[in-house]
């Protein structure tokens, strides 16, 4: 099985909005094309990043006129793709990633949850998720266990 060369580290940046998130995802997937991920891996990467980015749009820059930059850096290492997502918006409440809990599904229709799935998906699909705040900047680090790079 041929090993693709190590992908050089790259960064994509957008100005926060749900439409811009679509652009960011497109750009990241284009940059990952040399890795030849299979469709399942590609959809995993896209979903994790969509949830992380939409969370920033909704909570870090909550009001339309407080939009700001979002930076997505990707570094391929031997244990997968390491993403670092930074923004200059509001801090995460409690200074940490929310606990992503799956709601029980034996609920009445009228009680079914319509939200709260986002963090669950991130925690379920990504590894080593870590939030930190440095000055006025939020930083979310996570690792996606695909495209293991060569050693050396």
């Amino acid at each position, binding site marked *: 099985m041929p090993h693709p060369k190590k992908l050089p580290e790259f960064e994509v940046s957008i100005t926060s909005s749900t439409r811009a998130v679509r652009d960011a995802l497109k750009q990241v997937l284009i940059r990952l094309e040399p890795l030849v991920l299979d469709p399942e891996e590609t959809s995993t990467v896209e979903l994790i990043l969509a949830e992380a980015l939409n969370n920033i749009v909704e909570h870090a820059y909550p009001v339309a006129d407080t939009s700001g930059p979002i930076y997505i850096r990707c570094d391929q290492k031997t244990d997968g793709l390491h993403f670092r997502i930074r923004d200059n918006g509001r801090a995460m409440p409690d200074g940490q990633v929310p606990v992503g809990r799956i709601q029980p599904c034996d609920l009445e*229709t009228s009680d079914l949850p319509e939200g709260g799935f986002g963090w669950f998906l991130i925690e379920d699909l990504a590894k080593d998720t870590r939030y930190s705040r440095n000055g006025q900047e939020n930083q979310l680090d996570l690792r996606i266990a695909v495209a293991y790079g060569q050693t050396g």
Partner: protein
Amino acid sequence: MEILIKTEGDICIVTVQEARIDAAVALEFKEAVRQLTVDAPPDVVLDLTAVTFIDSSGLGAIVATMKHLAPDRRLILAGLTPPVDKVFRLTRMDSVFKMFMTLEDALSAELN
């Protein structure tokens, strides 16, 4: 948001002609389906064959749609592509919906 609606007897087929039901269009999707199904019969089949991506916002909008249609009408899902099916499975929401691989399967099940 491109959504088509067709009623055949007791079944209404709502065909989503967008590739993505995500945060950018979730609200629009909810409102469009709500308006289109105002006079819908008891069975509403949401045809997702063209949809290749949903995120948690899209999932939430589909759940909200089901809740809105209940209790007089039920929402059935058809044509889930692998990425869409994955989101329902991971969140266990596949246990909450009746789902069919194809629109044809949904229609033949419901018509019998």
